[in-house]
């Protein structure tokens, strides 16, 4: 089963275009990951308009390689500047920065890159072994299972998103409503189009994603200040001996990669949680003389291998079920849909060459990361000196031209700006943005399968409890909401009591 998919994808993968774009994707990912405030999601969002004009496997190779490079790139600024380029690398600075302070910056970066590549390859093996099995299991799913699965994906992401559960669910529901704009697939009636011709097909997913993430991020960066700061970083040149230094921690590497891949497959968990968890486990199992927190190589190995293995794990539900695990994979699903193939069991049954091609580009992107990352580190270090005052205008230009290029449509530009404003407002009020995009992606899947379920059901909504898998998912959804509500209520009660305790203490002094 696994070998069949890989062999089928070999023809699509072994083209100069696919391989070159995968390497370019890794380079771009490393650059954008190294720049504080940006990250793999922003990289994928900015390059999405370019990618959708490419052949499917080359396009997916380019975008997945950006995710792979971006997940590792954040470690460069974490190690050299004590500023993680992305939240994924936040745990890397615990030991990476002390290593740099001890004059071992090149070793720290080399180990980070090697651990990322090896962790990513482990995630790739997990992806290749589990995705076809999961797809085969899901091939028996009917509309009720898909309805509940889409709900599980959305609820899990809303629950785990930063901010409150309520706010995550609200942005998820907004996403579901946005997905209903346009022509209804069943009745062919028009919904929320207001007589505007451009709205008959709804809003383009790229315009939404670019607006909500990139435009609002740039506004946030401008507000943050430090636009003309130029950090003083010295050139570093890691060598391939850091691969052996990483392999000396093979137990840690395997354990952390397993944590990363397993967490990645769970909706909403993502690389940040997996890297912190892997670091915590590695530290708990370490000997005192290893000096975790004071420049231990094992600390860098744990966090970096975990966050890159997460990418492979996150691709499992994305490819096998069509359910995104987090915002970046939601955007990847959006790209797949634009490219004309539908992730899920049908992909493995009908287009095994595409599935196999995606597996191979993912593996190759990690191999490329090892070589390109170590050889081109001086370039990524130089990138850290770029001023935001140049970066912000360039990013906004890429947003505008990239979105326009999709359909040569000025309407898409207006949509992008509108979602940018919405993103700024929601960010300002502490609402997470990822559930909105996931709601937009999962909306059609949820609505179509819900209506199909009701069409085939003789007992209305009871159909969701009549089928074992669907009923299990209903229970999981209720547990997720119940558990998150309990945690939210408890933290609200604590927050309300905190000022009271403070006032009582002040009065006692």
């Amino acid at each position, binding site marked *: 089963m696994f070998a069949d998919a890989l062999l089928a994808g070999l023809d699509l993968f072994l083209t100069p275009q696919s391989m070159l774009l995968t390497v370019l994707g890794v380079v771009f990912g490393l650059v954008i990951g190294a720049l504080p405030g940006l990250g793999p999601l922003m990289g994928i969002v900015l390059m999405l308009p*370019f990618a959708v004009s490419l052949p499917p496997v080359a396009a997916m190779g380019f975008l997945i390689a950006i995710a792979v490079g971006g997940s590792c790139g954040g470690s460069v600024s974490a190690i050299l500047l004590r500023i993680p380029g992305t939240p994924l690398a936040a745990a890397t600075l615990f030991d990476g920065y002390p290593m740099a302070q001890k004059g071992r910056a090149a070793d720290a970066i080399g180990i980070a890159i090697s651990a990322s590549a090896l962790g990513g390859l482990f995630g790739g093996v997990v992806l290749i072994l589990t995705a076809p099995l999961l797809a085969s299991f899901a091939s028996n799913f009917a509309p009720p299972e898909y309805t509940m699965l889409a709900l599980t994906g959305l609820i899990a992401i809303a629950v785990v998103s930063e901010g*409150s559960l*309520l*706010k995550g669910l*609200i942005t998820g*529901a*907004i996403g579901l*409503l946005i997905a*209903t704009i346009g022509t*209804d697939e*069943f*009745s062919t*009636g*028009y*919904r*929320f189009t207001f007589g505007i011709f451009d709205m008959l097909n709804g809003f383009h997913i790229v315009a939404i994603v670019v607006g909500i993430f990139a*435009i609002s991020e*740039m*506004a*946030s960066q*401008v*507000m943050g200040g430090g*636009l*003309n700061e130029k950090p003083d970083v010295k050139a570093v040149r890691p060598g391939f001996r850091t691969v052996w230094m990483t392999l000396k921690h093979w137990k840690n590497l395997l354990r952390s990669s397993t944590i990363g891949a397993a967490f990645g497959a769970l909706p909403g968990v993502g690389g940040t949680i997996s890297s912190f968890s892997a670091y915590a486990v590695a530290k708990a199992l370490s000997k005192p003389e290893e000096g975790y927190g004071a420049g231990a190589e094992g600390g860098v190995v744990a966090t970096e291998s975990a966050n890159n293995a997460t990418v492979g794990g996150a691709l499992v539900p994305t490819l096998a079920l069509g359910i995104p695990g987090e915002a970046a994979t939601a955007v990847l699903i959006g790209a797949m849909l634009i490219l004309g193939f539908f992730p899920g069991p049908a992909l493995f049954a009908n287009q095994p060459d595409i599935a196999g091609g995606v597996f191979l580009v993912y593996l190759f992107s990690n191999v490329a990361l090892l070589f390109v990352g170590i050889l081109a580190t001086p370039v990524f270090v130089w990138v850290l000196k770029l001023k*935001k*005052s*140049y970066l*912000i*205008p*360039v990013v*906004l*230009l*890429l947003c*505008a*031209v990239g979105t*326009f*290029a999709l359909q*040569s449509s*000025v309407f898409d*530009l*207006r949509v992008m*700006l509108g979602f*940018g404003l919405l993103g*700024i*407002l*929601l960010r*300002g*009020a*502490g*609402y997470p943005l990822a559930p909105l995009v996931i709601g937009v992606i999962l909306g059609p899947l949820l609505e179509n399968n*819900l*209506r*199909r379920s*009701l*069409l085939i059901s003789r007992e209305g909504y009871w159909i969701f409890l009549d089928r074992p898998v669907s009923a299990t998912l209903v229970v999981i959804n209720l547990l997720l909401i119940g558990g998150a509500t309990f945690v939210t209520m408890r933290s*609200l009660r604590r*927050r*309300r009591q*905190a*000022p009271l305790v403070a006032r009582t203490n002040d009065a006692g002094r």
Partner: protein
Amino acid sequence: MNITPRQVEWLVIALLVGLVALVFQQAATDMAAQGIAPGGPYDNAAAYPKTVAVVLGLLIAAQAAVQLFGAAPPQDEDGGVPLRKLVRPAALIFIFGLYLGTLPLLGYHVATPLMLGALMVLCGLRRPLAIALPALLVSFGAAYVFEAWLKIVLPGGLFHLNMVW
């Protein structure tokens, strides 16, 4: 004058209440007129958005209750963000919006260097050469990638300014 996160939260709540109202208004008017509001799961295209709107309404009510009776967000205790701190992001959005609005009229090759230059000035760059040179280079570089490589015709504007690469 400061703006607090709680005030922004209320602004979002007001916007969302409007969104829920809009769903019901559209279902009762436009969708009903098209004949896609009543019927079973196949014909009734209004039932699903109305269900989502009901769920959204309940979530909004719960969020409003949290805002009314819960503790204030930590930033509120610091007095929030001064309005003058919002001038720069507002100007960024204004310049970008103006660029998008004038792009079909002025064309890519006129509007883009102007937008890039204006944003660089907004970000604090002052040396004319440090603004003009990157603005022109980035603008032409992006045009080359899109027009020559990706074969996308960028807006020529009223003057029909398009490069022949």
